[in-house]
């Protein structure tokens, strides 16, 4: 067993840090879009809006039932073959599309469950004092559903950050892609990938800390 090249690892840190912003960007844009889509799907499912409901069920089933990598390849290599106008789709766009759809399918189900989980009698109480459906959603249901869904949604966000590493298979040089390039130049694979792993790890740990704080704040109303 050879010794670890610590100097190489330290030198690699600033280089790889330069690619971290792209990784975070992929994840945050993907998360925001996925959240919007997931809320839309959840409301469609809860209200059972005809046609859209059936479409949503099939959409969720497909994107939960197939691997993310297969979906990314479909978007990046597959779609341009069918529709020549889509050849302009670059790796970054394809990654964001894939992450958005894949994770929105999962998140839609947790948001739906959280909405349905709010005690039905509170809905009746809100209606009985003359609230409209919109006021009921905004002021009573969604604040409580958010609290219930938050831990799961944060888990999906963490999962998504790690899933951005698949973008390197579409030729995107984010944290994983950059590490791969550095490692194949230096042949110091262990050193390179352990630096990348620690970076992912630190980002995820920071998020977990944030999640803990948020949960404490949202749980204030429910402790005895």
């Amino acid at each position, binding site marked *: 067993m050879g010794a670890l090249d610590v100097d190489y690892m330290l030198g690699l840190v600033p280089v790889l840090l330069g690619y971290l912003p792209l990784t975070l960007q992929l994840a945050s844009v993907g998360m925001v879009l996925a959240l919007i889509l997931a809320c839309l799907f959840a409301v469609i499912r809860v209200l059972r809006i005809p046609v859209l409901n059936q479409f949503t069920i099939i959409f969720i089933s497909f994107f939960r039932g197939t691997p993310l990598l297969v979906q990314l390849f479909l978007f990046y290599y597959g779609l341009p073959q069918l529709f020549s106008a889509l050849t302009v789709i670059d790796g970054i766009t394809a990654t964001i599309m894939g992450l958005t759809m894949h994770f929105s399918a999962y998140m839609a189900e947790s948001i739906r469950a959280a909405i349905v989980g709010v*005690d039905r*009698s*509170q809905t*009746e*109480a*809100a*209606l*009985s*004092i*003359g*609230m*409209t459906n919109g*006021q009921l959603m905004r*002021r*009573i249901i969604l*604040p*409580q559903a958010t*609290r219930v869904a938050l831990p799961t949604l944060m888990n999906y966000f963490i999962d998504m950050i790690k899933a951005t590493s698949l973008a390197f298979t579409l030729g995107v040089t984010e944290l994983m892609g950059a590490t791969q390039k550095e490692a194949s130049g230096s042949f110091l694979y262990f050193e390179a990938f352990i630096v990348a792993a620690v970076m992912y790890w630190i980002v995820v740990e920071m998020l977990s800390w944030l999640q803990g704080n948020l949960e404490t704040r949202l749980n*204030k*109303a*429910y*402790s*005895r």
Partner: protein
Amino acid sequence: MIELKGLRKQFGEAVVLDGIDLTIKKGEIVVIIGPSGTGKSTLLRCVNFLEQPTAGEITVGDLTVDVNRARKADILELRRQTAFVFQNYALFANKTALENIAERLLVVDRWPKAKAHERAREILRRIGLEDKADAYPASMSGGQQQRVGIGRAMAAGAEVILFDEPTSSLDPEWVDEVLSLMKQLARERQTMLLVTHEMSFARDVADRVIFIDGGRIVEQGPPSEIFYHPRDPRTRDFLQKILATHQV
């Protein structure tokens, strides 16, 4: 004043309310009794459209609604004119006692926040829970939660408060404080329509007792008449059963 004319409710084939005619004067306290499953709660829930009635006419204050021609705006207005107290309290879990009471004033009546909170505090004083203003429902006893539930109904300044078995989910130790609050409201001549199994409350407080069976009003009158001289055999039968298990 509230008036129901020919109120019907069907769930599919099953007829739950079979043409209810009922007039309640301002300040009157009316208690509905009857076997379970005879549509007592459904009657209350039809008055403010928590259940959509099948046919009939509902008048609350100046507003008369034909249930088959009710528009969204009519239903909202009907709900503004009535208030509802639920068996399981149904407080908003994400809001404090104060906010639960103020919510309607803020959101439905669009009062400024300071004014709504001032009114909510006044109600908290009347229900004896001033010190619980900032407490969330999860930290309150069942009795306290139901008192807030009644406070929320009081905030509305509604024509009538509908009580749907307000003490049925309470542990026995909390029943008295809720009943005494309801008696206080009755002394203030708040118009009330109640479904309850508290026969002593009905006997002591109600102006009129209505016995419902099979979705129809079988018999009605002052409590002294219904409890001590019931005319209909079904009323007699029901009272015998219930008085055997409940103290009056």
